[in-house]
């Protein structure tokens, strides 16, 4: 995974550099009685930038070019991520209980290829459980959608 280390190192380098610049430009290094709010962030940024260099070098020196970062199952992760993001975006319409229950049911279908009937029963049962357990019993004010759940 030589390129993974290079990508990771580069990302850390950028994060370190951005932190250093932001801390230097926007936060005072010293305060009235000693170090200011920018003191620690500045040094953290510098530490990140410095530590990213060996990671990049490790990636460049790695001779094993066979290991792959992504696998066929990565597509399933992407599907689940899309499902989560879609449901979260639709929560104002679906409501929290129904929306989260939908993730459980759709996840069963997507990943486990369970029968549709089992998935539908899971969605209904889970929505009822979330509504009563968290919404009623634990009094967490879960947002309700147009469906009232």
């Amino acid at each position: 995974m030589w390129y993974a280390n290079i990508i990771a190192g580069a990302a850390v380098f950028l994060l370190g550099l951005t932190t250093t610049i932001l801390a230097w430009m926007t936060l005072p290094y010293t305060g009235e009685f000693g170090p200011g709010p920018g003191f620690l962030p500045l040094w953290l940024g510098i530490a990140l930038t410095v530590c990213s260099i060996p990671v990049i070098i490790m990636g460049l020196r790695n001779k094993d070019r066979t290991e792959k970062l992504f696998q066929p199952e990565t597509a399933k992760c992407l599907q689940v991520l899309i499902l989560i993001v879609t449901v979260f975006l639709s929560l104002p319409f679906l409501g929290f209980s129904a929306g989260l229950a939908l993730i459980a049911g759709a996840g069963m279908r997507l990943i486990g290829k369970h029968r549709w009937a089992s998935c539908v029963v899971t969605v209904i049962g889970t929505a009822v459980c979330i509504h009563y357990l968290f919404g009623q019993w634990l009094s967490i004010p879960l947002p309700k959608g147009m469906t009232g759940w």
Partner: protein
Amino acid sequence: MDLLQNLYTGFTIALTWKNLLCCTAGAFFGQLIGILPGIGAPTAIALLLPLTFSLNPTSAIIMFAGIYYGVAYGGTVTSILINVPGESSSVMTCVDGYAMAQKGRAGAALSIAAIGSFLAGTISIVLLMSFAPVMARFALRFGPAEYFGLAVMAFGLLTVFGSGSPFKIIISTVVGILISTVGMDGVSGMPRFTFGMPELLGGIDFIVIICGLFGLAEVFNSIEEPESGRLIKEKFKLREVFLTWQEWVESRWAIARGGIIGFLIGLIPAGGITTASFLAYMAEKKASKHPETFGKGDIAGVAAPESANNAASISGFAPLLALGIPGSATTAVMLAGFMMWGIRPGPLLFTTKPDLVWGLIASMYIGNVILLLINIFLIPLFVAMLRIPYSILMGFIIIFASIGAYSVNNSMFEVWLMVGFGLLGYAMKKLKFPIVPLILAMVLGTLVEKSLRQALVLSAGSFDVFYTRPITVVFLLIALLAYCSPLIRMALKKAGYGKVAINLESL
């Protein structure tokens, strides 16, 4: 006498029906979660946080503790029956536990793991009871410089006990501290890294990060790399879990040694339960008259690591309660739980909240007894749980993580942040960056910055304060040695002392 009086007070608190129920529920869920793949102890505690909102702090902390050591017990079942450790601390149990199961002694392996955990856990509680107050009294001498040194030492020790590239460990640690700086600066009141978002002014809540890094990220990782293993025994009869006299004789000293090693390692900030079980296994192999039987189903090879991991999980409470320094990701989540209830662990906790501390310690005795009974009589039920497909579990992890994040501020902003941290956790695992240092640093970040700035304010900006105070010097020297440990190891290897390298496959 004070100790016994305190313990008596603790038992009167722990034995109320509500706390007893919390302890039992925590131990049961912990055991269950330890068995289920893809949910570790920190995730379990973070996900179950919303369920404790209706409890008082003592009951909630007792429940978390039950989950914590319940997970240590639970991880064993999968190690022995399907050769897949439920927790990293159970890795060593796989070696001889699975071999025992293949020989038809799965029941005995599960039994000695439960008995060993119980006995070593009890030893550890007794030692914790005596040691933690002493540690707390010693910590009363600590000023900001000592606390800064202590936190830096804990970070440094992560490079010794953690696995993987030391640079990646340091990067994870620094990112964790950096995350803790987001929000309003405690001294000047100036917003830092909030990018104009008012939701970030209060900082990023620890629960949101845990739900993302451990809950959601684990879902993605488990989908991509499902843990697989063949269940070696599906049905158990009660008589199969009883040990023979010979098996007991072979394992009793392994339990004692494992318990003591576990206790000592658990006391070290960032020492880790996994390290304890590994060292106990190696020590037992060295002490054994038949080291060649290790790896082939030796019962001492199950008893030692299991005793050590339970003892370490209990003694890990000493630095947490007495110093306010968590030793592992799980105790870091527990610290977040303490803080959620407005309790700041540290040397004064023993005097300001004796009911909580001693109630918690007494509940550990009760929890250990409950877990022993659960492990002997409910094993068939837990084995049945192994058949639940991950596609079903996954949905429930997402539900609990989302509600956990939402309930922090009753806002969707935290839920989206949780998704972001889920992706960060997934990327970190893929790129082999350890998550535990990030969690510990995130929890201790505020303490590090506060103590660093206070120390410098008190010394009028002079750094002398860090090398003129003996305790601080010791902490910082240990930290320096720890950070240099990869270089020391490399030098030793070059000088021909490198044969001690840890190699799991060789065991």
